[in-house]
């Protein structure tokens, strides 16, 4: 529990930086940091596989590409403008609404029994892989086809322009 609070005190400011910082590069790096902290939380919960996948896929691949795009487009830090402050007001409103909803749900679930511990090898590479490639094989293959379509689409679009 102590570890959770330490991580929470590091994660929440980092997550706020992602949204509030004017410089997109800092936002992206703060997001990397946030994802890494969440991965450590997974490790603390002994969910090692999810922790490593989180780092490999989000921190190591997706965020690198986002950072790459930000740098190639050389996005400048945002300047304050009336349009921006209207959007910010809307953002705070929606965020407050979501917070309220989350709080309501959390207080409703409060009386429920604590989650049952899974089987011993729950979340291990073997059990996840067995589940993924037997029970959930069709959704898995469909997802990969979806990704392939997106990939081919991106190549086609890039070809057409040049």
């Amino acid at each position: 529990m102590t570890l959770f609070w330490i991580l929470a005190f590091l994660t929440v400011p980092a997550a706020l930086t992602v949204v509030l910082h004017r410089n997109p590069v800092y936002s992206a790096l703060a997001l990397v940091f946030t994802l890494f902290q969440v991965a450590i939380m997974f490790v603390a919960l002994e969910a090692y596989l999810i922790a490593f996948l989180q780092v490999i896929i989000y921190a190591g691949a997706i965020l690198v590409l986002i950072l790459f795009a930000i740098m190639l487009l050389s996005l400048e830090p945002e300047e304050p403008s009336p349009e921006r402050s209207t959007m910010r007001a809307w953002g705070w409103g929606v965020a407050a609404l979501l917070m309220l909803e989350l709080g309501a749900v959390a207080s409703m679930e409060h009386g429920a029994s604590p989650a049952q511990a899974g089987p011993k090898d729950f979340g291990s590479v073997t059990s996840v892989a067995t589940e993924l490639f037997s029970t959930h094989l069709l959704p898995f293959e469909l997802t990969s086809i979806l990704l392939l379509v997106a990939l081919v689409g991106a190549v086609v679009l890039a070809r057409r322009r040049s």
Partner: protein
Amino acid sequence: MEVLFTFGKVVFAFLIVLQLTLILLWVERKGSALIQDRVGANRANIFGGVLPFNLGIVNTWMADPLKLFHKEDIVPEAADQFLHWFAPWIAILPLFVTFAVIPFGDVLVAGGYTINLQAAELDLGILYILAMLSLAVYGVVVGGWASNSRYSFLGGVRGTAQMISYEIPMGLALVSVVLTYGTIDFQQIARDQGELMFGILPAWGVFYQPIALVVLFIAGMAESKRVPFDLPEAESELVAGFYTEYSGSKQSVFMMADFVEVAIVAALVTTLFFGGWQVPYLYRDGFQFPGGFDIALPSLLVTVLQVASFLVKLFLFCWLQILVRWSLPRLRYDQLMELGWKRLLPLALINVAVTAVMVLLLDGRTIP
């Protein structure tokens, strides 16, 4: 006591990396001299030449780091001060911790304790390595961006493109290795290689997965961003690439990160393809040569031999990389991308497919 052992193992693994970077710095300077028919670094001495001879390896082992860390640290005014300071650390920290999962020996049984000679006894070793290596890109990107210079920026962008491109064949090469051994635990993989093939040949990964070895070695060298893959820091085009604006200790941290990466690639190749700490025909109670010729050895000596074997192999593959670095010219950028995407990637993919079929046919492993 357990805590003490763990602490000892972590310190030992960390020292391997730290010392190796310094030794490699010396080997690189002297080795390149050897290759280019020069004398190489020979000026360092203690107390201004009191000794009648120069101190050889002490040259760079002690003098170079001292010099590097005492140089003036110049930060460009237009740079992003915080990120400029932070980038070298992002580059090196994930690499330092990577070594923790590499086993440097079998279990050591002494005084009633059984010590697994692996700093972090993690059974998800390969995923851990992939996770940490994928974080190493940030040092290059952030360093290039924070310097606020065209050269640095171009170097950073090139570095990112190169590293994420070569991560894919590297990952696929690891997949075929995992398929062969059926585990992602480095210690288990090293242990499996202690068996014999046809009763005589040690069952090292190189005999099962030669293609994966080639792919992993090339991709690993590309990840370490050294010649012939040093496009991010190509001095004839980009001054020094992503660390043009770095000096003093920060620049040397970047340099150190390159050497640590060399050591990691060597450790991966050693552990996955050359038996890790295995000595051929050496078992827990001594040598058992084929043909019924046995030599019994105390368990402590066996452990020492294993660790020595690991270190020798590790060093050999570091040397091989330095040899390549001083022998081959730099690739052109399009050649680099072509090698990664059009050669290594299909090769690695075919290798994975063939391995999967072979495992299914020969091993009799069934799909649950």
